[in-house]
């Protein structure tokens, strides 16, 4: 079993047991900056040694996938879940966007299974952050009179910390290359797994706190939080196969499709669609889908990739 998953469970248990354990906010912030940069740099260094020809169609497919997901989920949330339009759109946006930590756990799982992945997967991760959010805002505002401050949102989409650090890391890694990266390699690559474990301890504390929201959210949303990643994983794996990703790349794209954002999407939706209840979207994304993905989901998505490749 992957130790990072056990750190997550420890966090959940600590929270449910009402332990006084708290990860200080500045440490959380520092760890998330580290993870975003490390993922970007690693991808950038490897990307520098690769021809870029195949990347463009895959990048476009990733963007289209992320933008399409909210349009698939929105009618389900509204008609079957009977949720208000704004909540349906907000939840759909969380699933259209992606979770960096789920991606990181996926990378670490694949490395443990000795499955190689394309070096530009972190680039796809960065590109898949915003389109789902934009789609969700469009769904929330369709037919409505309220205006959206698109300028501020565009700024957030490009210069928000997650995309900025991921893309910044990729560019730094690509410029520096494998030789000159060695002085910072022990920090950004050697310590990655340990920092990820620490981060997941904090994620466990946060996710454990969201479990109370789920009691209010009801059975539909809990079921939605499990069925949705299982189904979106199939969609992601299909797209991965279509654009010619390797076994590992397909598994990671399935993981990205199945993951739900909890950094970029909650912040953006709070500003763009303030009427939506954040307890619902964050509760299902962080309380159900995130734990599902890092424990059972990721091995399942690798299996999807194997079925499709075989």
């Amino acid at each position: 079993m992957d130790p990072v998953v056990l750190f997550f469970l420890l966090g959940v248990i600590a929270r449910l047991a009402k332990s006084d354990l708290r990860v200080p906010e500045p440490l959380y912030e520092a760890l998330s900056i580290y993870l975003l940069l490390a993922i970007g740099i690693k991808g950038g260094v490897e990307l520098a040694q690769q021809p870029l020809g195949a990347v463009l169609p895959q990048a476009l497919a990733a963007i289209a996938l992320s933008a399409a997901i909210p349009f698939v989920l929105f009618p389900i949330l509204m008609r079957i879940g009977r949720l208000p339009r704004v909540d349906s759109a907000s939840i759909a946006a969380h699933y259209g966007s992606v979770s960096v930590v789920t991606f990181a756990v996926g990378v670490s799982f694949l490395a443990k299974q000795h499955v190689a992945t394309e070096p530009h997967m972190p680039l796809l991760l960065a590109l898949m952050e915003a389109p789902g959010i934009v789609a969700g805002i469009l769904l929330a505002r369709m037919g409505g009179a309220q205006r959206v401050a698109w300028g501020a949102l565009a700024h957030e989409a490009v210069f928000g910390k997650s995309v900025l650090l991921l893309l910044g890391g990729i560019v730094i890694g690509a410029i520096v290359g494998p030789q000159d990266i060695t002085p910072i390699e022990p920090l950004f690559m050697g310590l990655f797994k340990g920092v990820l474990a620490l981060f997941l301890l904090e994620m466990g504390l946060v996710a454990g706190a969201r479990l109370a929201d789920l009691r209010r959210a009801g059975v539909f949303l809990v079921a939605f939080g499990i069925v949705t990643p299982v189904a979106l994983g199939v969609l992601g794996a299909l797209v991965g196969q279509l654009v010619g990703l390797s076994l590992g790349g397909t598994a990671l794209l399935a993981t990205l499709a199945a993951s739900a954002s909890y950094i970029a999407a909650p912040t953006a939706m709070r500003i763009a669609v303030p009427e939506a209840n954040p307890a619902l979207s964050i509760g299902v994304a962080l309380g159900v889908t995130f734990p599902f993905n890092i424990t059972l989901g990721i091995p399942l998505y690798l299996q999807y990739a194997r079925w499709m490749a075989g």
Partner: protein
Amino acid sequence: MQTHARKLLVIIAEAALEKDLVRAARAFGARGYTLSEVRGGGARGEREAAWEADRSIEMKVICSESVAERVAQHVLATYAPNFAVTVFVTDVGVFRPQKF
């Protein structure tokens, strides 16, 4: 030392509103503000500052009564319906009236 009467306007809100609140305070004539990160709970649940969407801020503005009133009215009308927001005002005495 002589003091001059001013209002201390305190706004406790979700951190997502920080930029908007600063812009509003400036636009309505406040000359300065102080921000701090805080934790707490209320009608919209506990806000523990554990991660991005869970952060809260406290903004203090020392200003004239009319500025305090306009900022408070704007914040309550614009944000209170959908966000965790607390606004209150108290009397304070300042030493340098031209600063506020």
